[in-house]
């Protein structure tokens, strides 16, 4: 019986692992070895601990509570940051986007100009968001953030970070265009 439980645990873990896409894995693995590159991976159990912290937040801090509760629905966060490093070639970015589209990602926003590239993609399954990936490159800085999990858009809409994100997007567009 103990072996059956271990087998089930391995199967569940491998399923979670497969939620990370091949295209993203390849892109991150290829570029995390660059100079000035920082690759961060936050596993689900750490996010669960963070989410548990919602129970200790004061009632007035709705925004913080919402964020912490949302972390319960996120299974993994990966980031790749290259600051003051070599620019990622547009061909590599195109290959990443095409790869993601081949894996059922849908492009939400694209802003591309001479020295700025902003992409936001989403993967949905059965009306649930399974992955949100954002890629931002501007001059000598590149940031790739990918969230895997199982949440609804309604879980996000109450977060004020949307206002912040929209402001950042407007600022980026004003710089690039």
């Amino acid at each position, binding site marked *: 019986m103990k072996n059956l439980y271990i087998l089930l645990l391995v199967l569940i873990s491998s399923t979670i692992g497969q939620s990370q896409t091949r295209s993203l894995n390849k892109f991150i693995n290829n570029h995390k070895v660059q100079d000035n590159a920082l690759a961060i991976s936050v596993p689900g159990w750490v996010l669960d601990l963070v989410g548990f912290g919602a129970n200790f937040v004061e009632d007035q801090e709705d925004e913080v509570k919402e964020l912490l509760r949302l972390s319960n629905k996120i299974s993994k966060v990966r980031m790749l940051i290259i600051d003051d490093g070599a620019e990622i070639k*547009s061909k590599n970015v195109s290959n990443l986007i095409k790869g993601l589209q081949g894996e059922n990602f*849908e492009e939400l926003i694209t802003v591309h100009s001479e020295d700025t590239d902003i992409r936001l993609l989403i993967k949905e399954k059965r009306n649930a968001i399974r992955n949100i990936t954002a890629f931002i490159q501007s001059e000598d800085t590149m940031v790739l953030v990918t969230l895997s999990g199982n949440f609804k858009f309604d879980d996000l809409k109450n977060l004020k970070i949307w206002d912040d994100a929209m402001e950042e997007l407007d600022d980026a567009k004003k710089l690039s265009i």
Partner: protein
Amino acid sequence: MYTLPILITISINEKMKKFNLVLALLLGIVGMSFGQADAIEKYFSQYQDDENFTVVYISPKMFSMVSKIAPDDMDQDIKEVIKDLKGLRILTTEYNTEAFYKEAKSKINTKEYEVLMTVRDEGTNVEFLVKDTGDIINELLLLVGGDEFVMMSFVGNIDLNKIAKLANSIDIDGMEHLENLGDKKN
């Protein structure tokens, strides 16, 4: 709209002649002006990775999401425009503007797009074209040629009275030409 009928007759062999099998396969392909949508989209796709161009694409899903999270204090007309939009593509450059303007104009099927308004001002040509079904405008196409080349395509159920207001809320080069629509109305 295309309908492509294919009739296939199969006659099996000598022994089966009595039982000639006539297989009629009728394929109906209902296109949404399939050929023309391809031409505009192809034109955008052709230059979307070109370093000389600025490209903006906002998908139908993004508009749907934005309409759900729009703040309560947002202008009601802009909220309604966003709710009804199903896509936005912008292509703009300051290189070889006249050549790209002429090339873009040559791609447009004048049987499907109707010129709504033309503005010429100090060497800049601005053209608004629409594709509609009945009273509903399904696509608004903006072409600008002069100091800059701009090609802008809005897809959805478009209210010209309200879309001019969008120019003030989206700070992207080329959007200011939408204000001419408001001037036309007045």
